[in-house]
């Protein structure tokens, strides 16, 4: 059993700059913020280290932080420019019975995070969902396609805060 703080110190020692901070002033469990392009290396360590043994990725989800600047486009619709999109990883060690939450943030204009499918196979569809809903591109993912929306959905990523539904999709009216 290790606390989030102990794990953070271990990671900080091993990865230095790539591990950004431990967030403690949160009402939920404390989480470690890491660099989006080093997630895979950190996760390999978390899985394989004898003192950590995070063998289970319980959940992986995308978040639109909506912390950018709100701007009106030519048609007067509000869009968000700048800011970040985030990915949260909820890990558990079934052997050592401890848990850890990792967060990584990436720029909204070109959201790129390294995949963890090599670490946990189950991450595959979770990452496809995050891509489908937020447009976060997981680098080196084996099969990064939309998973829930139609493959030919060309109107953006529906869970982004500035998403606008189209009027028509394949001849079907979309609004109520």
């Amino acid at each position, binding site marked *: 059993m290790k606390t989030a703080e102990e794990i953070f110190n271990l990671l900080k020692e091993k990865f230095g700059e790539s591990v950004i901070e431990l967030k403690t002033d949160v009402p939920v469990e404390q989480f470690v913020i890491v660099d989006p392009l080093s997630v895979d290396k950190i996760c390999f360590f978390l899985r394989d280290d004898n003192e950590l043994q995070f063998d289970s990725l319980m959940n992986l989800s995308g978040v639109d932080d909506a912390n950018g600047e709100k701007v009106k486009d030519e048609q007067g619709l509000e869009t968000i420019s700048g800011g970040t999109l985030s990915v949260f990883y909820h890990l558990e060690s079934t052997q050592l019975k401890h848990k850890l939450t990792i967060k990584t943030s990436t720029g909204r204009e070109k959201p790129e995070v390294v995949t963890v499918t090599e670490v946990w196979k189950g991450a595959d569809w979770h990452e496809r969902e995050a891509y489908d809903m937020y447009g976060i591109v997981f680098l080196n993912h084996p099969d990064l396609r939309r998973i*829930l*929306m*139609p493959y030919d959905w060309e109107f953006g990523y*529906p869970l982004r805060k500035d*998403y606008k*539904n189209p009027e028509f*999709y*394949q001849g*079907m*009216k*979309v*609004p*109520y």
Partner: protein
Amino acid sequence: MGLLDQEFTDGNIVIAKTEDLFNWARLSSIWQVGFGLACCAIEMMATSASHYDFDRFGVIPRPSPRQSDAIIISGTVTFKMAIRIKRLYEQMPDPKYVISMGSCANCGGPYWEHGYHVLKGVDRVIPVDVYVPGCPPRPEALLEGLLKLQEKIRNESIVKKSA
């Protein structure tokens, strides 16, 4: 229905109008496509099971649209599924009937405003004969919908074009 009122005394012959005979045959054996979408499909299956027994009205799930008479749209119609529903409907032979079951299939239901993925009513892709309200409708409500459909078929004409 005027089908059995002119029975001959020896009991072998019944005289009826072709229209009545056809309609009676059609409404008594509505085979539905073995097809369900969401929680409404659970109620539809309950209606098919022994307690409510859809089979007593001649309704059985037929696992081929090419040999079915009706399709019950039982659940949320997403855009992805709407395309497939349209194809299923087009594969069914005439005469064919559609029962829209539950709020989602009727008008989008709880997804009417923020459902970026939901078609707001299956009648935007295929013509619907009977709408069954409810979320989901109880088996009794679906049975009522079926009786309404039977009523509609009973009054059809082979001469006049139906709507």
